[in-house]
């Protein structure tokens, strides 16, 4: 009996370990899944604050009129499309 009781305790202990490991695996998988499926924030949410002129020429004309310098951002790619 005592041996069977010990076996039962061992089984219960193993079961507990398996459940804990399983839960940890599921949590890890869920976290990894969440990481992979993070949806990027809509691009339109970015760079809204700056009032960009349509071209350097129009910016220069407005700058001359308003007595301001021009800030020209030169980049690889398109400001209105996805990217860093």
């Amino acid at each position, binding site marked *: 009996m005592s041996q069977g009781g010990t076996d039962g305790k061992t089984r219960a202990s193993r079961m507990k370990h398996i459940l804990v490991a399983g839960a940890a695996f599921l949590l890890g998988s869920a976290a990894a899944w969440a990481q992979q499926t993070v949806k990027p924030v809509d691009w339109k949410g970015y760079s809204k604050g700056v009032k960009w002129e349509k071209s350097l020429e129009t*910016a220069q004309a407005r700058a001359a009129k308003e007595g301001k310098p021009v800030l020209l951002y030169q980049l*690889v790619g398109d400001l209105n499309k996805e990217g860093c």
Partner: protein
Amino acid sequence: MLRTVTFSDPQVADFINKNFVAAWFNRGPGFFNADLSTERWIFSGSFEAYPTKNICTFFLAPDGKVFDYAAGTYAPELFLKLMKTALELRRVLFDDVMALKEGGVDAARKIHEGRAMTMALERDRVNKAQTKEDGWKGILAGIKSPSYRGQSHQHGAACLSSLSSGYDYLARLHQKWGETLALPELDEIRFEYLWGNPFTEEAAQSKPIGGGDSSKEPDPLASGKPRPALVSEESPKSTIRLGARGIRVDTGLPDLLNLSGGR
């Protein structure tokens, strides 16, 4: 990163709209922006300052003469400082109607010399902090850690490396400006900055198409044409390749980092 985080910062946007007239220019049509996984890598890896030569912010007089610029990307707090320096230069160089003041260039040179020293001191401060455990905490205390496309950037020791490279670049840039007597035309330095290495293979393919209205720009994906090579076969030891989009970090360059995926 500059446009997604820095230009989206309300304080930065307000400062630009109040003091400058903003325009943008695609210097490399046909080149692709980094994909999302690359963006995440950039964002989580180093963000506070990154002097990539693929992007540059020029400050110009209305006649097209450049009086300041900064290549690369900077956190909002640092970019605000750059813009304040540009504004200080504007005040000594130009009058109310943006005409060049007599003695303005000499006054601007002194500002550049002062900024070169300040930036060098900042660089040394950051480098010193890198030798201490948790040294980054004091350095980055005044820099926000903004969220980016659904993720959050976590400051850490790695950030100091990018910050140091940014300050080092700015120190050298201001030093070079301090030695310069005239203000260059934009076209003189658009693809080869006053200080820094010249553009490489992508410069030859760049076509000045103007900025702002992107609707007329041909979509390189739709054209079916092969993408231009983003990774040079030269200096393979100094090139890091990441992902299918062909990001390149050429650490072999003397001072500026080269990130062909765009930022």
